[in-house]
């Protein structure tokens, strides 16, 4: 596949994404305060605060997810065969320092001359594999964030129109929960296998320093995802109760 066909496919996908986004998101109501239609819940300052915070994050994530493909394409075009420049990307990696194997380095006041942990390692984009992986992961993260923000925003709108116990809200909470769980299972695997091969390529002239692929599952996030699934079930029950209550004369 040559560069031109690759670029045109990318642009088509990008255009489709933009059209889809503008259809999905309720842009007209951004930063809107109390109106004559929205009485009741909108008078609560907290709801309004949540709505405006979500508005802000919606715009932020939208800009980021629209900017990433542009940056990727611009960099791909401007890059010559021999990469001359790049931006640093931070990758997550585990490290181990064995001071005993390094000459002239010694730690005082510790029992063990070994240090280990996890942290960010900066590499430059002349490693094309790392660069593409970085672009793809960033794009997916931004889209996931945008999706979750949009779902939350839709739920706030249902609260503002005094119909929080509708059919969609349990589905929305369930979708958010599933997305959070899936992303927090896929992400550690991407970290481990994707960045792992990049980390393994980094070598040192001293055997005292070691880098290894980091594997870390965000247990709290997975638990929050499970909690959301539970909450979705509760809200479904609440909807039935609300219906019963409304149809009791």
């Amino acid at each position, binding site marked *: 596949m040559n560069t031109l066909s690759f670029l045109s496919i990318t642009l088509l996908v990008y255009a489709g994404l933009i059209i889809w986004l503008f259809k999905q998101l309720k842009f007209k109501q951004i930063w809107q305060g109390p109106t004559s239609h929205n009485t009741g819940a909108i008078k609560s300052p907290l709801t309004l605060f949540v709505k405006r915070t979500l508005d802000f994050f919606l715009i932020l994530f939208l800009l980021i997810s629209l900017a990433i493909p542009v940056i990727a394409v611009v960099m791909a075009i401007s890059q010559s065969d021999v990469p001359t420049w790049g931006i640093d990307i931070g990758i997550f990696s585990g490290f181990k320092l064995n001071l005993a194997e390094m000459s002239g380095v010694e730690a005082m006041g510790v029992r063990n001359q070994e240090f280990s942990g996890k942290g960010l390692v900066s590499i430059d984009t002349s490693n094309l594999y790392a660069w593409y992986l970085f672009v793809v992961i960033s794009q997916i993260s931004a889209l996931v964030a945008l999706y979750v923000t949009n779902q939350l925003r839709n739920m706030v709108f249902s609260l503002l129109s005094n119909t929080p116990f509708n059919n969609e809200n349990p589905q929305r909470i369930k979708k958010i929960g599933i997305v959070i769980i899936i992303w927090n299972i896929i992400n550690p695997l991407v970290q481990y296998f994707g960045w792992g091969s990049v980390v393994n390529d980094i070598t040192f002239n001293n055997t005292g320093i070691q880098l290894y692929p980091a594997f870390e599952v965000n247990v709290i996030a997975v638990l929050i995802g499970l909690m959301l699934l539970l909450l979705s079930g509760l809200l479904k029950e609440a909807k039935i109760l609300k219906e019963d209550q409304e149809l*009791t*004369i």
Partner: protein
Amino acid sequence: MDSETEMQIKINLDLLLVMKKMSLTELSEKVGVTMANLSVLKNGKAKAIRFSTLIAICKALECQPGDVLGLEAIDE
């Protein structure tokens, strides 16, 4: 009428209103229930009726609960 037949409660408001020569609006004012809720009740969409509402309806229409409520089979 066997036990397999699905049954439902019928609200005989139409009949009672005609017999007492009362309009739905008038009943709504006397009972203190909105017109919207009263039509929900009349059209058989209601899931339950409060004792207080039933008492108010019986008082307004000068009848017994048995006159307002009836049991009928659901026709498929």
